[in-house]
């Protein structure tokens, strides 16, 4: 009985900062204010169906999916190395991934601006060795780089945690039965790590699809991603109704992605249990 008290501060926090704002978004999304006052409407959603806004949404989803994919490809091996028993320095290495997170995310993104400039640090070093300069600032590549750099730890850590929990005996048994390392990975490690992969994907995809700072700074305003678009509706145009409607559409997309992930997770889990 008494222990329930412990959760109340969080509960209040959640109500004030999550539940009430969500209802406000819901309210704004379905209403419009005109001369006579506030009325119910679906116009905000109809407006979003124009091809121009849909293309903004698709572009955001595409970039976020690609960044998530890169994070997975880069992050999975790193998580494996971290989790491997042979690797004694894993504590140091995992610190290396966590330490940058102590610095403010905005500062780290700003520093990429200076690093990638035409006459920036990276290009100065390259030209010192007579290597060709890279010119990716203000392109898709820079935005993807920024997202991968910022969100990679969110991919590595869940996979690492799951890999750590895998019973070493299972791997040993598979090896005893004659499986080579490829087979062991394919049949044992990978299926068992799927929950980690799924939560990693969700944790990278969600911030990636809604970011507006990275695309603004590293994309140089050449791209409107859905995050920038929502920000503009609120701050520049004071169109809270349209902004809320887009936010709701975004939330639906995120909920769908979480649902797909959990579905996938269950299937695999079921399959694993059967096996």
């Amino acid at each position, binding site marked *: 009985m008494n222990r329930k008290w412990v959760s109340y501060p969080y509960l209040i926090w959640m109500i*004030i900062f999550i539940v009430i704002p969500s209802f406000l978004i819901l309210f704004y999304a379905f209403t419009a204010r005109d001369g006579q006052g506030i009325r119910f409407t679906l116009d905000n959603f109809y407006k979003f169906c124009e091809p121009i806004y849909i293309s903004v949404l698709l572009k955001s989803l595409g970039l976020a999916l690609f960044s998530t994919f890169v994070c997975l490809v880069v992050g999975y091996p790193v998580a494996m190395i971290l989790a491997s028993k042979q690797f004694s320095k894993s504590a140091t290495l995992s610190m290396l991934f966590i330490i940058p997170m102590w610095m403010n995310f905005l500062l780290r993104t700003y520093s990429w601006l200076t690093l990638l400039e035409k006459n920036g640090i990276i290009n100065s070093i390259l030209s010192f060795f007579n290597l060709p300069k890279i010119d990716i600032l203000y392109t898709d590549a820079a935005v993807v780089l920024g997202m991968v750099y910022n969100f990679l730890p969110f991919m590595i850590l869940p996979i690492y945690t799951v890999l750590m929990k895998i019973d070493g005996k299972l791997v040993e048994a598979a090896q005893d039965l004659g499986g080579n390392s490829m087979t062991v990975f394919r049949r044992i490690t990978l299926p068992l790590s799927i929950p980690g992969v799924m939560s990693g994907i969700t944790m990278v995809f969600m911030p990636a699809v809604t970011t507006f700072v990275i695309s603004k700074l590293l994309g140089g305003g050449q791209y409107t991603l859905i995050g920038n678009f929502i920000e503009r509706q609120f701050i520049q145009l*004071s169109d809270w109704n349209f902004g809320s409607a887009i936010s709701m559409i975004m939330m639906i997309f995120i909920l769908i992605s979480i649902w797909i992930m959990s579905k996938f997770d269950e299937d695999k889990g079921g399959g694993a249990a059967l096996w």
Partner: protein
Amino acid sequence: MKRFLSKLLVLAVVLSTAALAGCGTAGSTAGGSGDKVTLKVYNWGDYIGEDVIEKFEKQYNIDVVYDTFSDNEVMHTKLKSGGADYDVAIPSDYMIRRMIDEGMVKKLDFNNIPNYKYIDQKFRDLAFDPTNEYSVPYMWGTVGIIYNKTMVTDQVDSWNILWNDKYKKQVFMLDSQRDSIGITLKKLGFSLNTKKTEELEKAKQELIKQKQLGVVQSYVGDEVKDKMIMGEAAFAVVWSGDAVFMKRENPDLEYVIPKEGSNLWVDSMVVLNSTKHQKEAEQFINFMCETDIAFENADYIGYSTPHSEAKKKMSPDLLNDIAAYPTDEQTKNCEVFEDLAGSIKEYDRIWTEISAE
């Protein structure tokens, strides 16, 4: 337990709504404690002399809470949503018009602002405040092209240079819908206050063309200053006061107001309707118009003062600088922004289409 929980829920809801509603009053009650008045001033970032506020506080025995904003729309949203209770704000021309129309600013009592007499005739009777009842000009300037003389051989006197595909990735445009679309309208020979769909459509096509030509490196905000000083590009569209600063840091840079004309802007001081200290607010405005203070301000931030006496104290170099004090001849094609009202949504649509290209 459950009943307790539901009570708590109700309490949370009540508290949060009270907090939301209370935002508007919390500050002023705090300010009312004691005899000392607290004046809240809301200005652009990086836009005041170093110890001007301190001097005012000492002279009038008033506490000043000083906050900054980064663009007119942000300021408007914050004031409009009731989340703030400032006494004095310093927005730009078209925004002042909108605020007058929306009843957000008070008529000034010019008996408290005798220093208004120093404000140059040129900055009176302006369209956004035709009867000079609501606002006192603070700074003014233009929008133009800054370019790096070591990187450009052509003569720079027209917006067309920003559409020259010889200069691939050499142009910084402003990440500001109003300004970027505005200069394009001027390039095409239209008014930058147009609401005509076909003219806006042409400006949109022109900006898309510019992007497709590959001349634009990016659409930037304040970081343009560092970038141009470091020689990251040959051209940038900038505000004149920033140009004065950049030229000081890098002598290779030069500023022009294109011959097609551009935007001439004026930022003015207004007293907000929510104020409880109108007299003190007017004292503040009057103080900012004292010759010494106006000079110190303009000298420090690099923008141009509308104060006739302060201008006389400026160094001759600055007075001859087109970035700081362009002649009437040089600004003859320039226009002041007017409030677009509903058309800003059209602008946002155009901007989205350009950036989705």
